[in-house]
């Protein structure tokens, strides 16, 4: 299954509910377009809800990093919410767990932008 992205606003934070796979050709481009589109529109607070992302490959990991750095360079912030075990394990393996702000609780994640 490719990546499905639904967007909602919560207290000034745009939450992107991601569902499916973030892989080369199956989700990386959609994620890139979604995040860059938000940053282009001036949104500074972006939360990626990863709770339904069951698979990510090296290309998807690279896309997450690019989203993070693109946001940071524009004075915005991309944070992660609710990692599945597979994604959590890969972020730990690649040390990207130390890069991202990661939350299990949405309310806490939203509050972190204030």
């Amino acid at each position, binding site marked *: 299954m490719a990546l499905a992205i639904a967007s909602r606003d919560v207290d000034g934070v745009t939450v992107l509910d991601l569902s499916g796979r973030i892989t080369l*050709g199956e989700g990386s481009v959609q994620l890139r377009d979604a995040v860059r589109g938000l940053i282009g529109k001036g949104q500074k607070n972006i939360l990626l809800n990863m709770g339904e992302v069951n698979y990510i*490959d090296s290309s998807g990991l*690279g896309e997450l990093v*690019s989203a993070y*750095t693109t946001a940071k360079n524009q004075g915005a912030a991309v944070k992660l919410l609710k990692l599945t075990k*597979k994604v959590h394990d890969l972020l730990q*393996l*690649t040390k*990207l767990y*130390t890069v991202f702000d990661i939350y299990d609780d949405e309310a806490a994640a939203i509050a972190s932008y204030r």
Partner: protein
Amino acid sequence: MESVGVIEAAAEKLAAEAGLDEDQQSHIAMAVREAAINAVLHGNEYDPARSIHLTFENTGTDLIFTIADQGRGFDPDSLPDPLAPENLLRGAGRGIFLIRSLMDEVHFRQLHPGTELTLVKHLAPASGKT
């Protein structure tokens, strides 16, 4: 690139048939997928005139996957360490690292032309077997 999904599924099926647990099946599928993508993308550079060659084998003690491309070849020892602080925020360069992390053995062989990767996962002895 659609063929990569077929290759990934076939590797996962072989791992399942060998009795490996879901985590290990997933690791093997991901490693083989990464190797196949590298072969198509970086090895053959999307050239439809070049092919990749794969073999999957269950020897009884190991699962062995070989993935060969027809590209220019590369030196695996020259790849930047993706865990180094200066490389952590790079948008690419984690594929070979993941393959090495997820498999028990990874071997590179330079072909003329191309590169062949051999990925090995050791199978635990069957329980009760002496």
